């Protein structure tokens, strides 16, 4: 592996409070303070941004079990193209990641075919059923970085309480997909004007808020971290904001589709706008933006959820929830900087320092000795997203045909270039 010299880029390293033009060196897979002596590959980053490798903490890789939708190989390639050097994968695979065997499989497969770092999560409850605790201690030893029932949500508050207390023992944060099954029932889109006009069953925002509130109270009681995934509701954002002021160990993430789209998009019944939690009103969208701007929401994640095309090409009620998002995430997020809601440094934080801290990952910085994970971003070019060219097996994106601005141009994992624009790897 050749040493790398990333030259003349605007280095944004929020962990070290750096935002200036300088060079970055990678030697033997690690960031190096000293320039390497010889045999160096030079990457000219003039006019580009150089950031610590970006981390996406909410991705569905679908393996084991649903390799028809996506595999660790295709999913990580997608991540690399999107500029992500690390992804955290969710346990709703088949079999569920509620046992050490599945975790071992994921790690092994990643070593074989994955081109970026993959950090698995383990289940909170066996088979994600929300009835009995999964073997959280063993999962920790097998290498999970968090526990979550994502895809599902533990409804039994007593079980959730015990899970949080137990996870604390292993310093494992609990991630939660906040959904009250009874309030949500068979809803397929946000409950409001548009669900009424379209005649589709509505999913009230209260279905999310109620669980966010429950998580805040349990996190406060257990004095341990609960991270609320994909916030979509204005009330949820406000609840988190108030809880943080009290010092509760609560954190939150938001997905680009929830700060870019609204429920009006569903008026054509296009299933590429069907996801869970659903797209909500303009007011909710703005609240998510405000939450990102004032650091109430500290992470941005994609909830990359691939589905086979034939699964989505059905009546709206029958289509599975979810969209892919790794390759459009960065451009959509850069919009927040362009609209002056965040500085570049603040945006990069949400993909580096913050997720790394939440999950205790030794990632997200360009300090000397850190892993050689770097993302080089060109914020300027305008490009049209063609989902047919995606590295994913799936094609379920609502952003197909969108004109986007900015993208990752080089993605480096452990000192190795895993994605470079215009380069056949």
């Amino acid at each position, binding site marked *: 592996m050749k040493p790398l010299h990333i030259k003349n880029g605007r280095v944004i390293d929020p962990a070290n409070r750096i935002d200036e033009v300088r060079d970055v060196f990678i030697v033997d897979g690690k960031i190096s303070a000293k320039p390497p002596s010889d045999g160096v590959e030079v990457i000219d980053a003039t006019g580009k941004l150089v950031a610590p490798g970006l981390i996406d903490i909410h991705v569905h890789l679908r393996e084991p079990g649903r390799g028809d939708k996506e595999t660790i190989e295709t999913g990580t390639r997608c991540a690399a193209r999107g500029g992500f050097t690390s992804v955290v994968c969710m346990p709703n695979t088949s079999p569920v990641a509620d046992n050490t065997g599945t975790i071992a499989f994921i790690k092994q497969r990643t070593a074989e075919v994955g081109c970026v770092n993959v950090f698995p999560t383990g289940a909170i409850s066996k088979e994600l059923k929300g009835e009995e605790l999964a073997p959280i201690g063993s999962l920790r030893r097998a290498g999970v970085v968090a526990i979550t029932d994502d895809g599902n949500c533990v409804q039994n508050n007593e079980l959730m309480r015990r899970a949080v207390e137990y996870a604390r023992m292993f310093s494992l944060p609990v991630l939660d997909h906040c959904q009250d099954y009874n309030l949500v029932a068979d809803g397929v889109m946000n409950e409001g004007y548009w669900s009424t006009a379209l005649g589709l069953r509505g999913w009230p925002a209260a279905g999310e808020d109620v669980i966010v509130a429950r998580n805040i109270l349990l996190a406060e009681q257990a004095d341990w971290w609960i991270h609320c995934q994909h916030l979509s509701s204005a009330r949820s954002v406000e609840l988190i904001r108030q809880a943080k002021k009290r010092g509760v160990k609560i954190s939150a993430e938001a997905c680009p589709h929830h700060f870019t789209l609204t429920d009006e998009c569903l008026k054509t*019944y296009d299933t590429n706008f069907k996801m869970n939690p659903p797209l909500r009103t303009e007011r909710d969208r703005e609240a998510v933006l405000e939450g990102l701007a004032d650091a109430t929401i500290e992470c941005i994640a994609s909830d990359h959820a691939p589905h086979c095309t034939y699964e989505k090409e059905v009546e709206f*009620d029958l289509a599975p929830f979810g969209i892919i998002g790794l390759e459009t995430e960065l451009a959509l997020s850069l919009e927040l900087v362009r609209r002056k809601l965040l500085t570049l440094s603040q945006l990069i934080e949400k993909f580096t320092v913050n997720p790394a801290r939440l999950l205790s990952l030794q990632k997200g910085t360009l300090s000397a000795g850190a892993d050689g994970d770097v993302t080089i971003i060109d914020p300027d070019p305008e490009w049209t997203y063609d989902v047919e060219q995606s590295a994913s097996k799936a094609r379920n994106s609502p952003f197909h045909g969108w004109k986007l601005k900015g993208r990752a141009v080089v993605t480096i994992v452990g000192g190795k270039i895993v994605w470079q624009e215009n380069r056949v790897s």
Partner: protein
Amino acid sequence: MKTDWQRKDLLSIQDLSVDEINTVLDTAAAFKQVGKRTIKKVPSLRGKTLVNLFIEPSTRTRISFELAAKRLSADVINITATASSIAKGETLKDTALNLQALNTDIIVIRHSAAGAPHFLARLLKASVINAGDGAHEHPTQALLDALTIREKKGRIEGLNVTILGDILYSRVARSNIWLLTKLGARVTLAGPSTLVPRVFEQFGCRVTYDIEEAIRGADVINLLRIQHERQRETMFPSIGEYTAMFGLNKERFARTKPDALIMHPGPINRGVEIDSEIADCNRSVILEQVTNGLAVRMAVLFLCSGGQMSEP
């Protein structure tokens, strides 16, 4: 003389302009007369193939569309299936593509999933007519209701129209709300608060939970069916309670305007939404609605097939 009708599909009333609605009603009035002739057939759709794709079963609407198509000399095929048998076998997409391979000209679709007609219209060259999609819309029902009101009252603008019952899950209610508000009627919705949420005020309607207030001053009262399916168990306590609070019984009927029309999309639950005698009284236009339904459907089929419709 020509119309300005440019659509090959009829998916919703929400999309239609006032002119388009009036074109359908005027055309329907002409087709109504065909049913009074000895030979109740005209050759307008001769040689065209129409498929009634009824994934959600319905005998009445299907018969109405079938008869409308046959009176226009079209060939009719009826496909009925439950959603589960389609799901176990072919997907809706495959069913539709198969029909296209048979050069079907018109597909009339009733489905329990909102948006199913839109899905087909995007996929197929054939004309797609929405005969009811989930809780979304039932355009021909609203059109026949409008034709009935127009015949009896001479106009729709300025009339007080009250729709009573389960509005939330009703496609008939939604289509009627769009059509009546577009044509300038004053629409009042009434029923249990769980079935008539305030969000409907954003659609230009008045919402009330007091049936007396709703029917007072109404020129037209449209009664919707109460469907007590499993998932509605949380919405209101029982049929008995509904009838007591919202049923149109003799006492309430006596307090309506003397020339108020009583309408119902059918099939009626005698004794639930409406007392048996009231359904049969001379102010009830329920049977005329059926006759007008046939004329409206003939008009819709005629308009959507006539002319070279450019792809939208």
